[in-house]
């Protein structure tokens, strides 16, 4: 198991972790995708997971989301995690507030959805259709839909990959702010090294189904250069610079 060194300073010590993964393995036929993986994410901690395509990071995320059955190992999460995918996955036949309220059973679901939409700056468009949204706005709704569930674990599967550069930067700010407020544990799967550095408290690099590198960005005096991270990802640094 990856040693649990320090918590983000503001987190309460009594919070249970958002998720603990022990000895997780997964194979498709003979091909081992995840090999004996251990991972612990605290509430309020932002973890970015980097790795080349096919390294198993999406498989890990899907296992955490409960979308694929677990073959070996254990995943202990207090509740069902919320997920934001690369595609917004909004229901085109429901207006925005109904999309956000999807799965909410509380009687005040509409009010909660409205509040969540206000948080992502879309309070004016409760009754609008998803097709009238831009890519960035749709992703904001998807984010609201995830956070309205008040998840203890938020899984982000390259949620900004399809957005233009400016929108992506704005989304980064929004996500940072929302995570600080709601304090879920976050696992962000991304290809974007800069995004990982910008957002994460901890950066993991996955290789051949296991976590091969770990770096804490919030520890004092510790900074990691883009080049070093790229080298970990197997990209020659003279190309990266």
């Amino acid at each position, binding site marked *: 198991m990856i040693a649990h060194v320090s918590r983000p300073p503001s987190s309460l010590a009594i919070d249970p972790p958002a998720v603990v993964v022990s000895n997780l393995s997964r194979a498709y036929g003979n091909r081992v995708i995840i090999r004996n993986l251990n991972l612990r994410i605290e509430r309020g901690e932002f973890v970015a997971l980097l790795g080349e395509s096919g390294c198993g990071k999406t498989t890990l995320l899907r296992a955490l*989301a*409960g*979308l694929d059955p677990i073959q070996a190992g254990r995943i202990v999460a207090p509740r*069902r995690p*919320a*997920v934001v*995918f690369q*595609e917004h*996955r909004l*229901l*085109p*036949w*429901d*207006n925005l507030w109904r999309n956000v309220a*999807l*799965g909410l059973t509380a009687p005040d679901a509409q009010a909660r959805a409205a509040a969540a939409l206000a948080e992502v700056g879309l309070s004016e468009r409760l009754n*609008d*259709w*998803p*097709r*009238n949204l831009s890519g960035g706005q749709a992703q904001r709704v998807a984010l609201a*839909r995830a956070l309205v*569930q008040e998840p203890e674990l938020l899984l982000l599967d390259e949620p900004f990959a399809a957005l233009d550069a400016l929108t992506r930067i704005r989304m980064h700010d929004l996500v940072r702010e929302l995570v600080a407020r709601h304090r879920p544990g976050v696992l962000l799967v991304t290809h974007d090294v800069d995004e990982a550095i910008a957002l994460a408290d901890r950066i993991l690099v996955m290789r051949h189904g296991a976590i091969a590198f770990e770096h804490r960005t919030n520890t004092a005096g510790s900074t990691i250069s883009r080049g070093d991270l790229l080298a970990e990802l197997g990209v020659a640094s003279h190309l990266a610079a």
Partner: protein
Amino acid sequence: MLLARFADYSLPATTKDQLILSNFEQTASASEFDRAGITNASSASHHGLVPLIGKRGLLLLSWLAPVTLVIIWELAAKAGWISPQVLPAPSKVLNTAIKLATAGSLLDDLRVSLLRAATGFVLGGSIGFALGILVGFSRIAEAAIDRSVQMIRAIPFLALVPLVIVWLGVGEAEKIFLVALGVTFPIYINTTLGIRQVDPKLIELGRIQGLGPFELIRRIVLPGALPSILTGVRYALATAWLALVVAETIGAQSGIGFLAMDAREFLRTDVIVLTIAIYALIGVVADAIARLLERRLLAWHPNYGRSR
């Protein structure tokens, strides 16, 4: 995806086309083409002379040809170029309509015909929808049912008319059965197709949001299948009408088709033309209702919804 859907449901249409291709059906499929964006008629309206004519002008223009045709028909009949035995003047047909509606049994016959169509439609539609849901959701049901349904569907349903008459005689049951038979398949096919086409990513999302199986169907599967189901409804309306015409023409003591066959005995072409016009009119109205349903229920859909 739309293209694939069109290709798919055009298959049953071609088997029907081999029998009788009603005008109604042709226009229905042509407008599906527009929807699919394959031939985009509306984009043409942004070019050339259109800004000068305007929307209202285009509407008037679209009525120009049919109105002219009717006027020429009227004049030719009045001038005696066309024998009334062959084709009576439109004014004569209109007169007959008024006479039959006030003094004759036209309204009663109309009511009887509509009732037959509605009963058959509801019956066949329910069966098609129920089977479609079953097969759409369950691989086991698909294995058990789908092949049989597809085999029955391969029979042009009007070829069954003699057999149905032997079974049920020429009463109401035979007519309703034929309508129901014609309606079942388009609804069935489009329901299963619609369910299959629901984006699995959305279903996955529903599971992540914690929806149970019932909620998953209600919130995601059925709304996702609705465009396809409504396409089935439009096709079914066309076949229902077609089935009714055939059933009423073969043997009936009441209804629009009976009116036509009765008139044939006495060479009353004016009544025959009137019944044809009524069939056409009801076809148009049925299609308009289906379109209205689409516009209402699919307001969210970029290809159907007009308003935001």
